[in-house]
């Protein structure tokens, strides 16, 4: 009898995932913990990084050995819900492109497009700041990715999480995990990434250029805007119609003034629910065996390159515009053409404020920042049209 006790204990141990815990799992748990630390201690995009970090940790807790395909254990999380359940369908929501349009609905309901309407000439910066997408695309191709994969990777430089996910699902669904993690992580780190590039490409005098107050935008204009833009963008870029439609619908609900409960729901409760589901879905893809690969490292580095070049190209575009403008624009708002709303605009404002406390650029920077959303949508739409979906 006593000699059977070790056998029983061994059988119990075999039923746990502990024996399959690997060094890679440990690294990913540390990465997940760092994300949570950055969210809590540094306030870097806490709404996203807490959920992604926690899901990353849980996704790297291995499951029991009964479900070991080819010798590798899947996570306990996926083991528990492999035939359905919340986490399975959360990922389905991303894969079937249900969640990204709903995020855009909430974004539209929270966004005031007044700065973009008030300064039409600044929308050019929303295109100029997207050079980073194509630099990353070309470099990805040089590194050996397929053209579709390179297109999905390049769009990280658009700094638009839902759009990056949308294009990745269509062009390179197997890279959804690293692409979405890179996109959201770099968006959170923008206050660290952008300022050095902005200061490098501008002189002190340029950084101190003041900008006059913009004109007031009427309610009629704000109501007409989503209708007009939805028609134009959907007409030319049907592949991104679901995202743009929901973005503009959310904005219309906000601006008409007679659907307050709908706009509050879209911007509030619904958005919060979708963010929770999205972060869980993204984090659950960060299992060590799939995430800790050289390919992931390449994607992360390419994403950083895309952001750096995008920041620089936005600033340079503003400087080129100043060659032709009588009333100069502060080139720092050029970097806000990266679509990360409102982080990039806030970074432009803070850098300018540090140079001149009387220069409050946030409203001006929001113009190109919002235009960048459409710039990313347009770039993504063209990529989908040219590269197709296999």
């Amino acid at each position, binding site marked *: 009898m006593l000699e059977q006790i070790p056998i029983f204990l061994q059988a119990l141990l075999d039923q746990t995932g502990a024996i399959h815990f690997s060094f890679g799992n440990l690294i990913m748990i540390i990465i997940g913990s760092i994300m949570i630390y950055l969210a809590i201690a540094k306030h870097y995009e806490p709404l996203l990084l807490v959920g992604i970090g926690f899901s990353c940790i849980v996704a790297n807790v291995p499951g029991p050995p009964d479900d070991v395909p080819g010798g590798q254990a899947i996570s306990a999380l996926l083991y528990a819900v492999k035939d359905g359940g919340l986490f399975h369908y959360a990922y389905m929501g991303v894969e079937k492109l249900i969640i990204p349009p709903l995020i855009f609905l909430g974004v539209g309901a929270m966004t005031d497009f007044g700065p973009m309407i008030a300064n039409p*000439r600044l*929308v*050019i910066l929303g295109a100029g700041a997207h050079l980073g997408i194509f630099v990353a*695309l070309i470099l990805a191709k040089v590194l050996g990715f*397929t053209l579709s994969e390179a297109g999905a990777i390049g769009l990280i430089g658009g700094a638009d999480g839902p759009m990056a996910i949308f294009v990745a699902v269509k062009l390179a669904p197997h890279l959804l995990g690293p692409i979405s993690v890179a996109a959201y992580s770099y968006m959170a780190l923008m206050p660290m990434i952008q300022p050095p590039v902005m200061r490098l490409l501008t002189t002190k005098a340029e950084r101190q250029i003041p900008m006059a107050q913009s004109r007031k935008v*009427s309610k009629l*204009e704000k109501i007409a805007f989503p209708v007009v*833009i939805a028609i134009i*963008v959907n007409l030319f870029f049907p592949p991104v119609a679901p995202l743009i439609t929901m973005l503009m619908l959310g904005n219309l609900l906000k601006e008409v003034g007679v659907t307050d409960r709908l706009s509050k729901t879209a911007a509030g409760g619904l958005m919060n629910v979708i963010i929770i589901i999205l972060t869980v879905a993204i984090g659950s893809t960060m299992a060590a065996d799939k995430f800790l690969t050289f390919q992931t490292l390449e994607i992360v580095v390419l994403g950083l390159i895309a952001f750096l070049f995008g920041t620089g190209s936005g600033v340079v575009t503003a400087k080129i515009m100043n060659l032709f403008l009588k009333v100069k624009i502060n080139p720092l708002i050029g970097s806000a053409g990266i679509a990360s709303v409102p982080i990039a605009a806030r970074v432009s404002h803070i850098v300018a404020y540090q140079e001149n406390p009387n220069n409050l650029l946030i409203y001006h920077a929001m113009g190109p920042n919002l235009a960048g959303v459409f710039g990313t949508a347009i*770039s993504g739409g063209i990529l989908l049209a040219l590269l197709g979906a296999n």
Partner: protein
Amino acid sequence: MTAIVPDTLQGALIVSVIDFFLSFVIISGIGVVLALFPLLNRVAQFRSRMQPAGAGTHAKRVAAERKLAPLDRGGDEPTDEDIAAIAAAVLVVLDGAPHRILHIEPSPRSGWAAAGRVAHHASHTPSLPKP
């Protein structure tokens, strides 16, 4: 839908150039459309000027009527005694709580008369006997 660009470095360059150029073109087009938006305000102003003098929303009409004909009750503006009585009534209703009366004016409807009628009619309402 299949890809129409070759999966080569040259294809990547072609896609990038076309995409970047078209982005500028489309975004510029959006900028041109936005530059026309102030015309919407002019159209709205033009329409409001073209409306007949007597027309307008109900609220505008009421405000205009109030401006043209302030409440005419044959000199029935509140007297000092009326104001004192109203202030005393407010004090009783608020049970002595600190307050400040900002404005008193005659009402276009006789709420007191209506309240009095309701109280009078209700006093004759038949009620079921209590068990």
